[in-house]
């Protein structure tokens, strides 16, 4: 018997392309090994199978200042998945994973 390995459903987040989000995208790539980044006119979309995490500390290391994850709202375009948010991280996930 061989199990069929199906790719997990993806969650995604999309931001405006600008200087603020460059480091955020970099942080997401650093924290999510399977991140797939697609760039469109004025917009960048990051997809990850199953679960995507955005970590405050990783962003702070890149921008060199304190960061409140709610600042993400300013440049957010769209999002999918269930959200868990704390002061330290924002997680998107589908529940079967």
């Amino acid at each position, binding site marked *: 018997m061989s199990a069929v390995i199906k790719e997990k*459903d993806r969650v995604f987040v999309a931001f405006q392309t600008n200087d603020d989000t460059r480091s955020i995208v970099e942080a997401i790539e650093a924290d999510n090994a399977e991140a797939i980044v697609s760039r469109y006119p004025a917009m960048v979309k990051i997809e990850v199978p199953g679960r995507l995490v955005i970590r405050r500390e990783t962003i702070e290391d890149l921008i060199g200042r304190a960061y409140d994850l*709610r600042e993400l709202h300013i440049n957010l*375009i769209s999002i999918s998945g269930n959200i868990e948010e704390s002061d330290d991280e924002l997680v998107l996930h589908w529940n079967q994973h």
Partner: protein
Amino acid sequence: MNMPITPQKPAKKLSLKDNYNLLTRGLGWETSYQDMDKVFAQDKFEGIKIHDWDKWEDPFRLTMDAYWKYQGEKEKKLYAIVDAFQQNNGQFNVTDARYINTLKLFLTGVSPLEYQAHRGFAMVGRNFRGTSARIAAQMQAIDELRHAQTQAHTISHYNKFFSGLHDPTHMFDRVWYLSVPKSYFEDAMSAGPFEFITAISFSFEYVLTNLLFMPFMSGAAYNGDMATVTFGFSAQSDESRHMTLGLEVVKFILEQDPDNVPIVQKWLDKWFWRGYRLLTLVSMMMDYMLPKKVMSWAEAWEMYFEQNGGALFNDLARYGIRMPKYHEVASKEKHRLSHEAWATFYNFSHAAAFHTWVPEESEMKWLAEKYPTTFDSLYRPRFEHWREQQQKGERFSNGTLPMLCQVCQVPMFFTEPDDPTKICFRETTYRDEKFHFCSDGCKDIFGNEPEKYVQAWLPVHQIYQGNCFRPGTDPTAPGFEPLAEVLQYYGFHVGEDGGEYLGSLDARNWTQWTGKPAVAE
């Protein structure tokens, strides 16, 4: 001086969670001299059972201080760019003046929905008895008002240069194709508060709105429209919060009581189909109205509905929720929707407040690549025929009025799910009267609530009944031209706002002001 003797350390900053709980918990109260069911008279009749409103969590736990701070930042950013855009004559940097027609459709068909959303969320904010639900609705009502205002403000600059943008609210209440978005939203607003929030927050904002805003804004950027990208993104930053709320709302309702599941499923079926039919206008915008195209409607449908929507409904399966009814029909229609819609608007362009045109040869090539199974065989010959007619000075237009679907109010041009060459007609009889539908989806919706949909204000019926003339008009006067009068009633500048793009006032002005051809090479 009343300095403390032992200086205290500053209080530890509250965590996001504590902060949010302080805002939303214990803020309401049980009424004493009026029955709670009388104060909140609308949150039970739909049959939804809520046992514990405190289980409602705002996923972003946005508190008022943070809300105003970030919204203020978004506004400053937006208006700085709008100023720069105006000062630099940004309206002339778009690909060509055909592009402006997407803005006409947006300002007359979508911006009024932002205002409707503002009213709708103010209403549900009043009607829910849970405090956190009311706060979420309040914030969203303010957001939606902001969207209506920023869109009117930004696009008003284009109104100085282009036709068809002069009176969107007047048009919204009257014009035939604008009754599609108008009736969609009024259907939701005249439902109960739980149906409204399921329809708008979940089915529209969460499931379908990506199909409107992602390609629209990326398309605006790609076509050089800095102003629209900016208001679009500014609105979308709120929208992503609304979408998340939509998912949270539906999960909350489903978790509260198993009896809620079939009610919600029925709403998801209804509002998926209503929203999908509304997006017909978006499909033709993507495939035909953007001079430089970002992605096809079929690609967007695959990416944002079939994949993302599929993942979402897989996730909701644990509650016993399945994919919305007729989603497979939408997938069958994806290779023809935009072509059928654009052809219909081409027919009735003289009665619209935006221009239409035959796609250029290079665009037809793109369409053939994106739609290899349908474009060349089914739609290209028609466009080539129309182009020939036009070159002979006989630009085709349709002198009659189309039959509308009783539910979605779109002209009945859709084709059979399994036969793209045959128009899809459905009908039913209710209280000895016959009603017509574009699809099984719309027919089912009517069948579930006939008392509601028999009251639909269908523009074509209204015209034939003589209800779409300005006050004081005498239809019996010699030489009376009903269509010309209807367009006056709509508030159109007849001969400027609609009709063929080539040779139009917009096209001529564009060339005169920019020195560029009316259709970019």
